[in-house]
């Protein structure tokens, strides 16, 4: 994680964020950057937030499924990082640590929202700009989408989103991190704090639960 250049797109993460690790790596500057963070240097935090805001926002949005909640939650993640940076010992990568904070905050928020029964306001993404799901269903790319297939695709996406929202946060967590965020099993273990076997079995169960829920709603098997 090298120090960011002045004014540039700044701080780069480690393996958790593929493509960032191959940029200039300088342990001394990394240490210096962490020292600045620990000293609550405002500029260092600005750089940190700018470097991670996109990924953190995407993660919390996928976990919560609501834009307004996601924006607030992404800010809250960095506030927690600001408050807890003194306890970061460097045992894991900074990116992993931030992801862990984000995931834990999201799980708490989901439970809170669940108690308030407000999950019926799901708004994952308006489907207007989506490409056809029939491509996804058939595996064909580049085909012209038939309107009825497009509509059917949107409906299936909606069903998947709703079924995801209904899954327990502990299971949703591993599904999002593995199947959407593409984290490796090692990274998954670091973020969740669970052993490898538990992560794999939880992922297996999460997929089975989602598959059953989606198929129950569709009334047919996922093909």
């Amino acid at each position: 994680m090298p120090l960011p250049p002045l004014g540039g797109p700044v701080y780069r993460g480690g393996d958790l964020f593929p493509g960032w690790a191959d940029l200039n790596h300088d342990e001394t500057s990394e240490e210096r950057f962490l020292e600045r963070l620990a000293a609550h240097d405002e500029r260092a935090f600005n750089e940190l937030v700018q470097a991670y805001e996109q990924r953190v926002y995407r993660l919390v949005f996928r976990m919560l499924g609501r834009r307004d909640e996601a924006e607030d939650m992404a800010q809250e993640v960095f506030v927690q990082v600001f408050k807890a940076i003194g306890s970061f010992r460097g045992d894991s990568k900074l990116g992993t640590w931030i992801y862990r904070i984000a995931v834990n905050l999201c799980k708490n928020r989901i439970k809170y929202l669940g108690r308030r029964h407000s999950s019926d306001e799901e708004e994952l993404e308006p489907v207007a700009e989506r490409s056809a799901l029939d491509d996804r269903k058939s595996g064909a790319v580049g085909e012209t989408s038939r309107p009825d297939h497009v509509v059917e695709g949107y409906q299936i996406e909606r069903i998947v989103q709703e079924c995801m929202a209904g899954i327990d946060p502990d299971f949703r967590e591993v599904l999002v991190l593995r199947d959407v965020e593409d984290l490796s099993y090692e990274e998954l273990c670091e973020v969740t704090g669970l052993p490898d076997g538990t992560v794999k079995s939880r992922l297996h169960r999460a997929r089975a639960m989602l598959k059953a829920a989606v198929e129950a709603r569709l009334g047919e098997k996922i093909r």
Partner: protein
Amino acid sequence: MSDLPETKATEGDDDDRLRSLVRGALRGEGEAPDVLTGFQKKVRERSGGKFYAEGWSTSRNPPEFTYLVTGLLMLVALVVIYLFLSLLSGKPSRVDNEAAPVNVVAPAAR
């Protein structure tokens, strides 16, 4: 037992299909909103104004242009002051150090 590999392959295919469905359903997130400003505001409020209280610390990018202009202005100011002080300063007056006259007085006779 003979159909085990096939079953495993089917499960793998199912996982892939489900994965692609999940990915498709959750992929739309758009651009992140301005997280930095909200973060700074929250920290400022919760710290009672201890952090992110002044303008430069809350800007999204370091004000490099401001740094440059300030640096140049300081340099110009130093040059002007130097020139001004050089005009004020006079040349040091020459000091002629002549040997002081020495009168040797003969000792008085006893």
